[in-house]
C-alpha cells in the first residue's frame, strides 16, 4: 500500500461514520416543543451553539514551542464558557396577526408594568435565560384569521451562568518539523440517531523560519489552524474552522506561559420535523408555521468570531497540566492535562518532550 492508498484508507475510515450517521431518520420534535418557530428556535439555541463552537475551538494549543521530534500524547481538557447577560435573551418574533389591531389587541406584563400593542418582536429568554413572558392577545373578530390570534407562551431558560463545552479528548502527534497535529473523535450514540464530532488541529512553530528569537530558544511563535466537523444524523451538521497565531515562553522548571489570538467561525444547519398535530388538541398556535406543521430549520451559527487567549502550563515528567482563559463572546476558562506517551527520533530520543530548548 503506497502513501496515497494509506491516505485514501484513512479518509474512508474517517468519513464512513458520517455516511452512516446521515442515513438515520431526521429528528422528530415532540408536541411540547411546538412552541418553537424556526425563528424562535434559532434565537433560543444560538448561545448554546456558541458554547458548542467555542468548546470546539478551545485547546488547539498550549505552547508555541514544539520539540523537533516525533511525539505522541493524549490530552484531556474541559472548556467552560461564561455566559454573558447579552446571551440570555433574544428578540422573539410574535405572530404576524399581532401587528394588526383590527385582528388582535395584545399586551404583556413585565415587572408589574403592562405594555399594550406589542407586535414585531419581544425580548424572551434564551436557553441560558430565566422566566419567559407570555404575550396575551385578544382576537377582535370571531371568524377568519383573527380567531387564531391568541395568546402565545414561550420556552424558558435554565438560568445558567457558566456552561461546560464538549470535553476535548484529543490525540496529539508531534513531528520533527516542529509541527503538532491534534485529532478528536467523539461519537455519541443517541437512540436511533447519533452525534459525531471530528476535530483536527494543526500548529506549526514558525519563528525559526523568520529568524525570530534566535538568541532565546525559550521563546517561540507558532501558527495554528483547525477544522471541526459536527454531525447529528439527518438533523444537524456544521463545519467550523479556526486560524490564529500564538506565542509562548518556557522555563527549565517545566513552566511555560502562552498568549494568542484566533479567528474562528462555524456554519451549518439544523432541521427537524414536527410530530403530527393532534386534531383534538385544545391548544392551537397563533403561529402559522406551527399550524402548518412546517419543519423547524435554523442555521448552525456562533455569536463568536474571535478570541484572545492567555494561559500557562506546567510539565512534570510525562504529565503536563495546563490552564488558560480567553476573551471571546462567551469568555472561556479551560483546564486540562496532557499525558505524553512517547517521544522518539529527532535530535535526541531518550526522553519525552520537555519544553523545547532547541532554537
Amino acid at each position, binding site marked *: 500500500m503506497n502513501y496515497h492508498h494509506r491516505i485514501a484508507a484513512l479518509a474512508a475510515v474517517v468519513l464512513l461514520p458520517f455516511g452512516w450517521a446521515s442515513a438515520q431518520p431526521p429528528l422528530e420534535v415532540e408536541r411540547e416543543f*411546538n412552541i418553537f418557530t424556526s425563528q424562535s428556535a434559532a434565537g433560543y439555541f444560538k448561545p448554546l451553539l456558541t458554547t458548542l463552537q467555542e468548546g470546539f475551538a478551545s485547546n488547539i494549543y498550549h505552547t508555541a514551542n514544539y520539540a523537533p521530534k516525533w511525539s505522541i500524547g493524549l490530552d484531556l481538557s474541559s472548556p467552560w464558557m461564561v455566559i454573558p447577560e447579552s446571551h440570555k435573551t433574544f428578540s422573539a418574533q410574535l405572530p404576524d396577526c399581532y401587528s394588526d389591531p383590527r385582528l388582535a389587541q395584545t399586551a404583556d406584563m413585565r415587572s408589574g408594568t403592562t405594555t399594550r400593542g406589542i407586535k414585531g418582536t419581544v425580548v424572551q429568554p434564551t436557553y441560558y435565560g430565566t422566566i419567559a413572558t407570555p404575550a396575551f392577545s385578544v382576537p377582535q373578530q370571531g371568524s377568519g384569521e383573527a380567531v387564531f390570534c391568541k395568546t402565545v407562551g414561550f420556552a424558558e431558560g435554565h438560568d445558567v451562568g457558566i*456552561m461546560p463545552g464538549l470535553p476535548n479528548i484529543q490525540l496529539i502527534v508531534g513531528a520533527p518539523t516542529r509541527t503538532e497535529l491534534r485529532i478528536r473523535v467523539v461519537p455519541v450514540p443517541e437512540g436511533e440517531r447519533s452525534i459525531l464530532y471530528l476535530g483536527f488541529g494543526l500548529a506549526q512553530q514558525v519563528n525559526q523560519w523568520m529568524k525570530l528569537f534566535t538568541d532565546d530558544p525559550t521563546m517561540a511563535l507558532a501558527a495554528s489552524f483547525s477544522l471541526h466537523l459536527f454531525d447529528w444524523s439527518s438533523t444537524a451538521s456544521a463545519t467550523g474552522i479556526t486560524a490564529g497565531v500564538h506565542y509562548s515562553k518556557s522555563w527549565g522548571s517545566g513552566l511555560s506561559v502562552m498568549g494568542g489570538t484566533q479567528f474562528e467561525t462555524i456554519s451549518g444547519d439544523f432541521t427537524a420535523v414536527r410530530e403530527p398535530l*393532534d386534531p383534538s*388538541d385544545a391548544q392551537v398556535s397563533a403561529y402559522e408555521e406551527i399550524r402548518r406543521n412546517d419543519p423547524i430549520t435554523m442555521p448552525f451559527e456562533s455569536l463568536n468570531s474571535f478570541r484572545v487567549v492567555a494561559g500557562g502550563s506546567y510539565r512534570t515528567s510525562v*504529565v503536563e497540566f495546563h490552564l488558560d482563559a480567553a476573551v471571546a463572546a462567551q469568555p472561556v476558562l479551560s483546564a486540562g*492535562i496532557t*499525558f505524553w506517551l*512517547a517521544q522518539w527520533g529527532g535530535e535526541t530520543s531518550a526522553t519525552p518532550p520537555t519544553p523545547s530548548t532547541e532554537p
Partner: protein
Amino acid sequence: MNKIMFRGLLAAAVVATTLIINACSVVDSLDTFTMQLPINMEFSWRNRQAPDTTVDFVNLMEYSVYRDNMDDIQSAKLYQVAYWMDTLVGNPSIENAEFAFVEFYIRFQGEQQQHLLGRYENVVVKDYYKRPHIITVPDDIALLVSEAVRTKPQFDVIQRYSLPKNGTGFFPQLEARVDLAIRLEVKL
C-alpha cells in the same frame, strides 16, 4: 518509546474525573424543560343578576402538551392571568358599567376550597372590552396550587362579579374570557 508512567496516568485520571463530574453536575440541572402553556377560558352569563358567580371547567388533559407529558411534569405553576370582556348586554350598558371588583378563584375537582387567583378592582367595562388586562399570580398562591395543578388536571375557575356601581346589575348576556398562563416544567 518511553514507557508509560502510571503515576502520571493516575494524576491525569483524577483531574479528568473532577472535570467530568463538575460538567455532569451542570448538565444534570439542564435535564428539564420549562414552557408556558396558555389556557383559554370562556365565561358566559345569561339573565343573571350581579353580584353573582360564573364557572368555567378546565381539563388540562385536552392539551396534548400536558397529556403527553403527565408522568414527566415536575411542576405546574400558575403565572399570569389576562381577563377581558367580550360581550355585555344589560343595565348598565358597556359604556357605563363599572364593577367594584371581579375576582377569580380556582377549585380543584373533588374539593370545596377555592383559592383566590386574582382580583381586578374598579373594572370599567369599556376599558376591558376586548382588551386584555393582566395580573401576575402572587408567588404564594402559585406555589400553593402548583402541586395540585400538577396532579389534578381538572379544575374549575370561578369568576365572581360585584354589584355594578350603577344600574340594576341585571345582564341578559355577559361573556368574558380569561387566558391563564401556566409554567410547565417537564423532565426530558
